């Protein structure tokens, strides 16, 4: 399967920063709130509640990751637009279970991008999922018509 969110070929990445591990979890309340805003049926029994595939995006707002994203975008002097996103699961996440998240942030120039690759494993190191976020950084002058 082609990964639609794969980083553009041939453009070197620089300034790779490794982040984590961070301890993360998907609480029942957080998952229920996330599902309400992303079109899930409300009549599902809460005991069977499935963690949505895209829920781990929430973990990218952890202070240790967010600070790096914001600093890199500021450094590039622009506004970040979400260009592409991918998630690949080895196993479904479980509500109220703890996981370890590690991330790698890198930059590309021409065009300016910030790439974040994230890996989530169980506390014993069993892989659960990988995700990749690519942000295109556009200067205000470039964006204004």
């Amino acid at each position, binding site marked *: 399967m082609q990964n639609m969110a794969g980083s553009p070929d041939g453009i070197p990445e620089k300034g790779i920063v490794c982040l984590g591990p961070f301890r993360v979890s998907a609480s029942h309340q957080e998952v229920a709130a996330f599902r309400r805003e992303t079109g899930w049926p409300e009549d599902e029994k809460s005991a069977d509640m499935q963690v949505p595939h895209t829920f781990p995006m929430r973990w990218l707002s952890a202070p240790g990751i967010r600070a790096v994203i914001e600093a890199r975008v500021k450094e590039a002097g622009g506004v970040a637009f979400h*260009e592409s996103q991918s998630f690949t699961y080895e196993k479904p996440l479980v509500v109220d279970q703890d996981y370890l998240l590690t991330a790698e942030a890198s930059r590309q120039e021409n065009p300016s991008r910030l790439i974040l690759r994230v890996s989530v494993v169980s506390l014993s190191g069993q892989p659960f999922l990988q995700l990749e976020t690519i942000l295109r950084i556009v200067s205000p002058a470039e964006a204004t018509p």
Partner: protein
Amino acid sequence: MNAGHAQTAPVEWAKAGEQLPKRSYGPIGGEALLRYAAVSGDDNPLHIDPALARQAGLEERPIHGMLMMGHFEPMILAWRPDVELISLSAKFLRPVLAGQSFELSGRVIRVTGGKNPSMILRLMVHAVGGDLSLVAEALLRPRCKAGV
């Protein structure tokens, strides 16, 4: 894939070309953007501040691409509750703006049977009455039964 995912083909596996029922959402207003920002942690001011959106060359705040992408999984499971989403990747092409509605569509582009059945979907989001906003691809496998 590993033992976390089922490997048993459902009785009736989909056929290539099969369309998923379309779904529409919206119009998505500023309140919905704030709620999504709260539950996802993505409070990028571009999605919240109309002035910043205009500064970035947009007429209005863009709806979070992830909000739209997040609607694919319930659409897929409403179509086929017997599948599990293994991977999902998307490219965000054009923004859908606050005040607009969006429509999800999809079709099966490849099916594999045998001992390791899977299917690949091509998924899209359009602004209702407007342009293609997001194109995505999903890999599905039969859902794991409890105790398997």
